[in-house]
């Protein structure tokens, strides 16, 4: 196998893995701050992806415009979802809160998929853009892919900068690590949790628009992505976005290389095997320590 082939596979893996990482960011933020495992998280990608595809097919809107319309909408819906349905459960006993959030998010997953399938049709869709390609030696990259890669990098940097420099980002990290102390510092948990849920959902919406530019979506595809995203945040460390990015990209590349050297039919197994191995080796979750 020539180096070019491997490099080509790596490029493809980085693109897919970057998208995985974007999905994982939202889940990681929400899980870190609100401590809720949102089973409907990946389904948001499926639903927003379908909506974006319909908008593109019906009105030929530019993907940027579609994102500008959908992402704030999802932000609001995510925040309202948390406020209306999940927040009240926090006052219950831990057992009831856990079971309640599972039921609420699973119920939301079913509703989201079904309503989308009824309104937009259950068929698979994408946004069809034909873009020229760039050839570097034997490696080929399309402009769309480059744009998506650039968007992933920009978004990751943006999220990173928000978390590192803004007061909101600081509070998000503080609540993730020590919720009580964050409150003692004046961070109102309700507001921060609501915002986080909104931002986390909006991140997936952003990922959805990028995803549907290269890969097809359908209303029922979300749950597998949720599992994949959880794998990434467990392996990368909860609340650790650079970790999630690295693991997401590695996962995408690993899936490609397994397809190359072993057989594409085994690629979907990689994330699961990785998750199980890491968890068994580090039962309390993986922690990235500085040397």
């Amino acid at each position, binding site marked *: 196998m020539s180096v070019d082939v491997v490099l080509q596979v790596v490029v493809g893996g980085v693109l897919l893995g970057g998208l995985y990482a974007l999905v994982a960011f939202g889940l990681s933020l929400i899980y870190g701050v609100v401590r809720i*495992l949102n089973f409907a998280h990946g389904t948001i990608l499926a639903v927003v992806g379908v909506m974006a595809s319909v908008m593109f097919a019906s009105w030929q809107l530019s993907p940027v415009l579609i994102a500008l319309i959908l992402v704030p909408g999802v932000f609001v819906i995510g925040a309202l979802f948390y406020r209306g*349905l999940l927040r*009240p*459960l926090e006052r*219950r*006993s831990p*057992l*009831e*809160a856990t*079971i*309640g*959030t*599972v*039921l*609420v998010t*699973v*119920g*939301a*997953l*079913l*509703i989201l*998929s*079904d*309503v989308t399938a*009824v309104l937009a049709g259950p068929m698979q869709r994408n946004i069809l853009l034909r873009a020229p390609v760039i050839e570097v030696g034997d490696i080929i990259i399309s402009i769309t892919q480059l744009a998506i890669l650039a968007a992933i990098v920009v978004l990751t940097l943006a999220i990173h900068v928000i978390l590192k420099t803004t007061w909101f980002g600081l509070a998000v990290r503080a609540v993730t690590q020590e919720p009580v102390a964050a409150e003692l510092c004046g961070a109102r948990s309700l507001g921060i949790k609501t915002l986080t849920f909104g931002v986390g959902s909006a991140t997936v919406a952003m990922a959805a628009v990028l995803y549907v530019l290269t890969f097809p979506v359908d209303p*029922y595809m979300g*749950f*597998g992505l949720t*599992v994949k995203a*959880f*794998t990434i945040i*467990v392996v990368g460390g909860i609340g650790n976005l650079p970790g999630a990015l690295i693991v997401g990209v590695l996962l995408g590349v690993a899936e490609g290389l397994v397809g190359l050297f072993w*057989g594409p*039919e*085994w690629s*979907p*197994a990689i*994330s*699961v*095997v990785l*998750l*199980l191995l890491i*968890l*068994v080796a580090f*039962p*309390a*979750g993986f922690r990235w320590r500085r040397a």
Partner: protein
Amino acid sequence: MKRVSLMTLAAIAVAALALLPLSGAPYWTTFVFSVLIAYVLAQSWDWVAGEMGYINLGHYVFYGIGAYAFSIALTSAAIGSVTVSMVIAVVVVGIAAVLLGLPLFRLRGDYFAFATLALLPLAEVLTNNMSWLTGGADGIVLPVDHVLTVAFWLALALAVLSFITTLAINRARFGFALRGIRNDEEVAEVMGLPLLPTKIKALLLSSLFAGLAGAIQAWQMSYIDAVTVFGLNVALVPIAMALLGGSGLRWGPFVGVVLLAGIQQWLLVNITMLQATVYGAIILLIGRYMPGGMLRAGLLQNIAWLAPLTREHGAFVADRTAGQAAGGAAVAMPLDRIAIEPDAPPLLVCKDVVKAFGGNRALAGVSFSVGPGEILGLVGQNGSGKTTLFNCISRVHALTAGEIRLGGRDLAGLRRDEMAGLGVGRTYQIPRPFGDLTVAENVALSVMLGPRREAPERALAEARSFLAYADLDHRRDVRADTLSLQEKKLLEFARALAVRPRLLLVDEIASGLTPVEVRRFVERIRAVRDDYGITVIWVEHIASALNAAADRIVVLEQGQLIADGPPAAVFSDRRVLASYLGNTAEAMQ
């Protein structure tokens, strides 16, 4: 009386159901059949989740493995017999449960849940790719045998067996052990419960029922493929059903399964659009407004005729012990007196004990010994290493260096659950009761898990004498998490005694008591030694209490032993006084 009538009705209902396949209503037969399978799955899942507190989202994997093992065996030329294939399915599922359980039980909480969930897509990929065994995506085609009637009876029998097993687990020592794990597995372990074997046993039991359910359904359906038995869309349904009814409740999974399956079927037949939305909305609303499950909702608990369905397990246990004579009024505990030889070798020897957490040495080379029948007071500031020392003696922590011997035996290499068997009982500074069990059950659990492995009925009876000894008998039937802090500390004391210890480790149990209560407690500690010969190490801040109770005092400071001697001498030591009362730096000068 009420319980009996409900059970009688259940028996009649089962008998009526058994006639269903003969009545010429195949639709209802297949519908009830799938309800029965769902019940077996939900109920067997709940043994691990509701009883033991481990949310196994991959429970359906065992259903799928059972279905596949059965189908492969049945279609292979070498086997072909249904009975043998069922047995093979059970064996394969059992092996899979043990192999998966060993690594998975290293995990807890959400991590366990998600790791188990990940098993489903993995199983699907494996099944699809291992075509030589599983037929790959072709699935496995079984002969068309029209086995609905027999399969229905098998499913009914399995469902009834699941329910009976639930009752048996609730009643058995094993069930109490599971509830101990659910509440606080470290405490249960220190009481003498070997954790991993117990967890594996629970998973094994639950997986066998799921595997059989899979085998029976595969037989009835006559065709399986990976999507059908490992698909995420179907796998979470039985779990949602159990949660909806009320996980951990005797009737919870049953009510949840019947209700959700009924609603789903009704929607399918009567609504042509958005059934999944309505179905999802029902799940969502119940999660939002009845998050503990329907049967835990106050709304239902107040309806008289539903009351028998909504009771917690504890309520059934209280029923059984309520009738027992309150023989525990006497303040004698059912403990044998341990003879104290005057010149026996020390019971506990600590030699250069070091325990480091990262770079922080909580114990920096502590040596002392405790003679049999001695009451040793252990004193030191917060953070001086007292609790760490207790944790080292009860093997919660492994030593970094040094050696601890109990009755001449080196404790290195022993598991936590073996300590109770060696006669070490302990209390926790911050009480750790099994919150959702009754006070009596808390103590009974000690008796059950401890070295004598008593059966629950006896243990519950015995528990009352320990409770009486700790002045807690009047609170025996309330949930332990409703006790006051002081009562919880007394509960800790009763639980530690119920292990039948040779060596009792008491951690700050008298703090917060009134002076009168403290005096009573001092008498109690002395009596434990005087009447039963139990050796005691008592950590306490109330010096007067130690002064009155202890034969000897050991003082720790910054993980080091700074004094060891009779109370009078130690408490007049200038360095001790300074360390205990004033600025340390000043004392050094």
